[in-house]
């Protein structure tokens, strides 16, 4: 029963009433091919951060779906995202990971594109083309829409896509939270040099679902939890360091959009907890930020840590400020790109501390993500088989227990909300996934 592009979509892949989903979602080539068309060629996708291309002519490679794209700033300073391919015979026009350039020269036959994507020169234009080639129609393939949001850059191949803020919906509140510096002010984040890129053998949705709200995979990180690796140097991960106040975990799902967020909310009093007692400068920075944030955000400053996935494949972790993009790379392979961010105007010492912690925490060399990657890989592999595919995955945790109002009015606006532990967000993700795939 094929589910490839252009064929009717099997109705029984996900059963929201029973809370189960077919393993085929994670291993099937036809479904994957359909995702490339119905999801990655339509949705808004995260492509980068303005701090990567501060100056006119700056460019950096990124990806959309399986394809290489160029994120750059033209000579007038305008941002663009182009498919990295020549219109003539398809050659990859940009082969460097980053740099600054006024133009993209195709090395195959020499078509020359400006930084704004226009086709500026074609060898033999007069002699060979008799000046008949319509150069205006053969510029670089540009995304249908590009928008930035607080320095993050997003693009879509769909001219019918809603505006980016519409696309975010109310989940935007949590993106704002993520993109704000520790003091809750208007400062910016910046990407630290170097994007971690690696290939991991599992379907892209493992990462997307995991970050959307898998608060219940503690056993995955049992080994990290036994170490003294947290910023404070105490037992376990940073999650062990957090506020002594009573907190509650909150899951927020936006099934219309597919986004999902997990967050920790402080219930009672909310004093600063020193994570860096041995490093006074850093400690002072965070203490100060903590105070300012409380003052600025008031009750809303109760949100603490967390993260989520913006549909389909951009996951963010706050606290440890990083973004993971789960680029599809075949039904059983993902190319992960992980960006690390720090507050632009924090002192160098603070940046160092953040950088050092997060790179030993996440990524393929990180003490926690290593075990996630292993679990996703082996789960994917063990789901491929003839018999395995007959048995769906179980998404029943908290099924039917979703609420529509949270502890605070501002907390769960527009969302389904479950306090504590639930698979609500994964179900919400799949809701949107099915809606798009059925199209």
């Amino acid at each position, binding site marked *: 029963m094929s589910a490839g592009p252009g064929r009717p979509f099997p109705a029984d892949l996900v059963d929201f009433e029973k809370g189960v989903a077919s393993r085929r979602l994670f291993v099937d080539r036809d479904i994957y091919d359909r995702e490339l068309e119905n999801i990655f060629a339509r949705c808004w996708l995260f492509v980068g951060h303005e701090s990567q291309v501060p100056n006119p002519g700056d460019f950096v490679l990124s990806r959309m779906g399986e394809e290489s794209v160029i994120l750059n700033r033209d000579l007038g300073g305008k941002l663009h995202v182009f498919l990295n391919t020549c219109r003539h015979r398809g050659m990859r026009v940009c082969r460097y990971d980053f740099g600054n350039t006024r133009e993209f020269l195709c090395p195959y036959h020499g078509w020359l594109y400006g930084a704004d994507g226009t086709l500026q020169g074609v060898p033999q234009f007069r002699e060979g083309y008799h000046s008949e080639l319509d150069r205006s129609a053969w510029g670089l393939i540009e995304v249908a829409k590009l928008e930035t949001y607080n320095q993050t850059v997003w693009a879509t191949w769909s001219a019918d896509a809603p505006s980016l803020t519409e696309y975010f919906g109310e989940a935007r509140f949590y993106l704002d939270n993520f993109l704000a510096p520790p003091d809750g002010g208007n400062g910016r984040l910046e990407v630290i*040099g170097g994007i*971690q890129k690696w290939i991991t*053998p599992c379907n892209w949705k493992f990462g997307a679902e995991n970050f959307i709200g898998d608060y219940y995979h503690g056993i995955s990180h049992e080994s990290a939890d*036994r170490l003294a690796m947290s910023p404070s140097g105490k037992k376990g991960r940073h999650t062990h360091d957090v506020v002594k106040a009573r907190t509650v975990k909150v899951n927020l799902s936006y099934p219309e959009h597919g986004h999902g967020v997990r967050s920790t909310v402080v219930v009672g009093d909310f004093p600063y907890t020193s994570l860096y007692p041995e490093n006074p400068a850093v400690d002072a920075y965070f203490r100060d930020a903590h105070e300012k944030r409380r003052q600025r955000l008031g009750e809303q400053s109760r949100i603490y840590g967390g993260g989520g996935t913006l549909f389909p494949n951009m996951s963010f972790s706050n606290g440890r400020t990083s973004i993971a993009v789960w680029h599809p790379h075949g039904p059983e392979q993902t190319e992960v790109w992980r960006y690390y961010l720090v507050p632009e105007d924090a002192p160098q010492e603070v940046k160092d501390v953040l950088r050092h912690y997060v790179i030993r925490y996440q990524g393929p060399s990180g003490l926690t993500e290593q075990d996630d990657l292993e679990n996703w890989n082996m789960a994917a592999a063990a789901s491929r088989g003839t018999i395995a595919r007959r048995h769906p995955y179980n998404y029943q945790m908290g099924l039917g227990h979703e609420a529509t109002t949270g502890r605070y009015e501002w907390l769960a606006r527009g969302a389904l909300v479950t306090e504590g532990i639930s698979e609500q967000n994964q179900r919400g993700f799949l809701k949107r996934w099915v809606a798009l795939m059925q199209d």
Partner: protein
Amino acid sequence: MDTSTDIERLLLVRRVEEFLYREARLLDERRFEEWLKLLADDLRYWMPMTRNVRFDEAERAETRERQDVNWFDEGKETLLLRVQQIRTGVHWAEEPFSRTCHCVTNVLLDAVTPETVSVNSRFLIYRNRGDTEVDLFAGKREDVLLRAAEGFLLRRRKIVLDQNVLLAKNLTIFF
């Protein structure tokens, strides 16, 4: 002939080779605690990421130590954590554990001082795990060995892994 300094040099080269080979063996035999003892307390262990750049911008290819994101950029304390993690028995990425084969080649001495010896070498590390997982890691190491009473100690290691997109799902082994 006057070969005594030449011989001194030969002996030093061999001592360095033996250090590196014994170190590799400790890693392959999973004697990680003994390996940790070969590390100086102030060790810097750094593996940059490498990017694709123009022929004349090679110096921009590598991410910078202590500034950029790197694959590794740490000291002995973090390596200790890594060893401890493996020894928990619940570090799933290493359960079952990787079979590693550290081949060290092209050992060359750079600066030799009374306190330290700088060493340049190549490595090929073959990793096999589970049923059929295979990774091949190749690259260069630039080490600084400290001459201590108990023999050499590794004080600094820069590892240049010859990959742009990392072609392994994780980096749970030592380089």
